[in-house]
Every structure is written in C-alpha cells, then in structure tokens.
C-alpha cells in the first residue's frame, strides 16, 4: 500500500511583493510519509522560499502574493495558524541565529514543550533525549549566542525535534558541520526516517544528500526535475544544470 502524501504542493506560485518578481512559479509535487527529499538548485532559485511556504511562514509572517496550495497532512497552510503548523513541520533555517533566543541551550530546547504545557518531568525527559540524539550534551548550559555557526544549527535542530514534528524541513543544516558531526546527524536523519518522519533537505553539497530517496531540482523558481536519487550519480545531467 502506498504511503500517504504528507506534503502536497499544487501549482504554487509566489512573489514577495504584489507585482514583484515571481520567486516560485507553478510548483507541483507531493512528498510521501517517511521519504527523504532533497531540494537542489542554484542559489537564488527559490529553495529557501519554498521551505518558508512549507512551514507556513509564507504567507502568515512574510505576506506576499501566493497562489496555489500547500497542504500539510491534508490541511492548507493558508488556513492553519503558524503555531499549529509548527507542531507538524519543524524548520531549521539557513541562518540558525534567527530562531535561537533563549539564555541557554537547555532552555532553548525546553521552550516549546513548556509552551505546550507538558509536565515538568516529561519536559526533562524530552530535553535529555533530544540533547542525546543530537550529541550536544557538552553545550547544555552554554548561551546559544556564544556558539559557533555549526553548533547553532545543532541546537536549532534539537529545539525543533523536541516538538516531535512529523515533517522536518532543513535548510542547509549540514553545510556548516564538521565531518564527524555531519556523519552523526546524517545517521540521525536516517533513524528518524526509520521512525516514520518525513525529511526535506535543502543542500548544495551533493554528497550530503545521497541519503535522499528523491530529488527535486528548482531552476528560476520552477520545478524542472523530480526524480529518484540515482540522478545524483548522473554527472552529465548535474553538470548540465550547473550543479557540478
């Protein structure tokens, strides 16, 4: 039996300002539960904008002119409040600084569970579990502002995982990690997939996305390719799209 489509994008077009340049043009694709999907494309082609649409930040926070639909677990993001969507779609931004605000790493991770009014003991268990998963116990009491770029991404990932979303959207999270940490996080993502999570990865590093089941290629805001990850072995094809 085919897995359910947890993300449905239907003829999505978007520009940041009414009458301005179209950043996304008529995108249509679906993502099934438990898939790892990589979104590739040259810088400026709309990858991060698409991520913001998947998380509901567009249009709820950034506005702009959006047409078409983004359905998350069957619900149109336009009709859902961001707080509700955040329970289903965990996003780690390309610039992790924009989503870190607590005085310590532990507080950062506990923030969302606390706001969900979980019992204190449950929050402690969740924080311990997530810190262990991501491998940042040594950073537990650090101020996120004092961390390196790669460490901030790890903390943002941990904070998002604490909410238990079924879908993860990771915008260039692996890029700033050293080799050992990248390996650990890649294994974590594979484990999360085994547990049924759906993962959408935006990366420029083609080696980092070899774990993907499927690859979507954006060019100038349009979806020009949607295929299996075996595409990543086709050097001629990738070079033709300036990805190699």
């Amino acid at each position: 039996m085919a897995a359910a489509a947890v993300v449905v994008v239907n003829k999505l077009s978007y520009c940041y300002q009414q009458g301005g340049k179209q950043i996304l043009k008529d995108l249509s694709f679906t993502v099934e539960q438990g898939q790892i999907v990589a979104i590739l494309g040259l810088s400026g082609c709309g990858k991060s904008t698409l991520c913001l649409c998947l998380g509901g930040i567009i249009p709820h926070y950034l506005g702009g002119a959006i047409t078409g639909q983004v359905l998350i677990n069957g619900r149109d993001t336009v009709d859902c409040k961001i707080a509700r969507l955040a329970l289903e779609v965990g996003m780690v931004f390309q610039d992790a600084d924009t989503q870190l605000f607590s005085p310590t790493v532990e507080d950062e991770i506990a923030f969302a569970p606390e706001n969900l009014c979980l019992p204190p003991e449950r929050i402690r268990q969740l924080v311990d579990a997530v810190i262990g998963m991501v491998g940042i116990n040594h950073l537990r009491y650090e101020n996120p502002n004092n961390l390196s770029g790669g460490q901030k991404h790890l903390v943002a990932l941990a904070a998002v995982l604490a909410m238990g979303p079924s879908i993860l959207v990771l915008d260039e999270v692996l890029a700033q990690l050293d080799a050992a940490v990248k390996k650990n996080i890649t294994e974590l993502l594979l484990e999360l997939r085994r547990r049924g999570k759906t993962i959408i990865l935006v990366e420029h590093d083609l080696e980092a996305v070899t774990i993907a089941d499927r690859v979507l290629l954006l060019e100038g805001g349009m979806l020009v390719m949607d295929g299996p990850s075996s595409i990543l072995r086709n050097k001629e094809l990738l070079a033709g799209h300036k990805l190699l």
Partner: protein
Amino acid sequence: MAFIEMVQVSFKYPGQKKTLLHDINLSIRKDGITALTGPNGTGKTTLSKLMVGILVPSTGYITLKGQKMSGMTLAQIGRWVGYVFQNPEKQLFCPTVAEEISFGLQNLELPGHEVQRLVKESLAYFELEHLAQSFPLQLSQGEKRRLAIAAVLALEPELLVLDEPTTGLDAYRKHLLGECLDKIVTSERGVFMISHDNNFIKKYASRIIKLENGRLTEYVC
C-alpha cells in the same frame, strides 16, 4: 616577513571560564590560499576575528606588516585585510546591491566614473547584475554571500579572510569563487579561509591548518 604574525596568542571571551585559544603561534604570508579547518566550536571564527582586529588577544600579540595591531585602528587594518563574515548579513547595510559594492570605493575618494566602472565589473564577475538595484537583505543567502565577497574584494585588500565562503553557494558559483581566489593569489595577494568544505580546500588551498582543542596543527598539501 609574515604579513600577519600571531605570537603566543591566547584568548578567552569575557565572562567565560574556558580559554578557547592557547598559545597560538601562526605566520600568515601574503601568498597562496591558507585553509583553516577543525571541529565545530573549536575557535576558528574567533581566530579569524583576532587576525583582523575585531577581537583583542587575552595574552600575546599580533602584528600586521610588522606593526603591532594593538596600535592600529580597525579602519587602518581594513585597508590591508578584507574580512567576509560567516553570516554575510552582518556586513550588508546599503539600500541596493550596487551601492553595497560602491560604498567602500567611494570612501576611498575614487573618481565617480572609476567607482562606476569597478562596480560594473564586480557585478558582472559575481553575476549580480540583474540584482544591482535590489535590496541586499532580500537576496538569497548565497547571493548575499557573493555580494559580501564582491564588496570586500572591490577594495583590493592584500589579504582576504573568508569565514565559510562556500556555504550557500552552488557548485557552479563555488567554481567561480575558486577562480576568483586563484586570480587574487596570482596578483600577489593572499587568502585565508575557514572552511568545512573538504573538496574546495583540496582543490584550492596551498596550506592547510587545523585548529583543535585550541591548538594548531599544520598539514602538508
């Protein structure tokens, strides 16, 4: 003579218990591409900020062209050393892309037509022409990074310090950046870059230094 020399430099952030950098001795010559690598959180960005005078050593000293940096202003250091932050947004502040590149040149009091020519060349080289009148903070991260590099390079610093310059860049633009860095080196200027991008380092670096547990190790290329 080393272009930048770090002599027994140790560093600890104010209020922090842990000393991040221990007794660093490092000579940076004004030739070739030096890559600094190492685990996350080990102090690479901190070391780069010490090199350009944004941070001051807790102990030890740093010289630039033989002169102690402690006796120089950031503006004086900035004439010789260009710095591109890990997060390019930190150094973008003009209303348009073209103005971002022209800002430094105008402050050097170059003639207007010369500024225009250099800006046009820079926009073309970094493929930012179509964004010339765009608001920098509305660009994608990769475009912002290209713009920050373009703006710093326009001033032709003798040493360019780049913190994770390939993050957000697709393969094609990494290649352009690599060509640009090669050109800088052939014009007798140096590059010092922090990077986790092993493929980029292998392709372009002539010297690799690793920072781990606050100490440096050098690898032969």
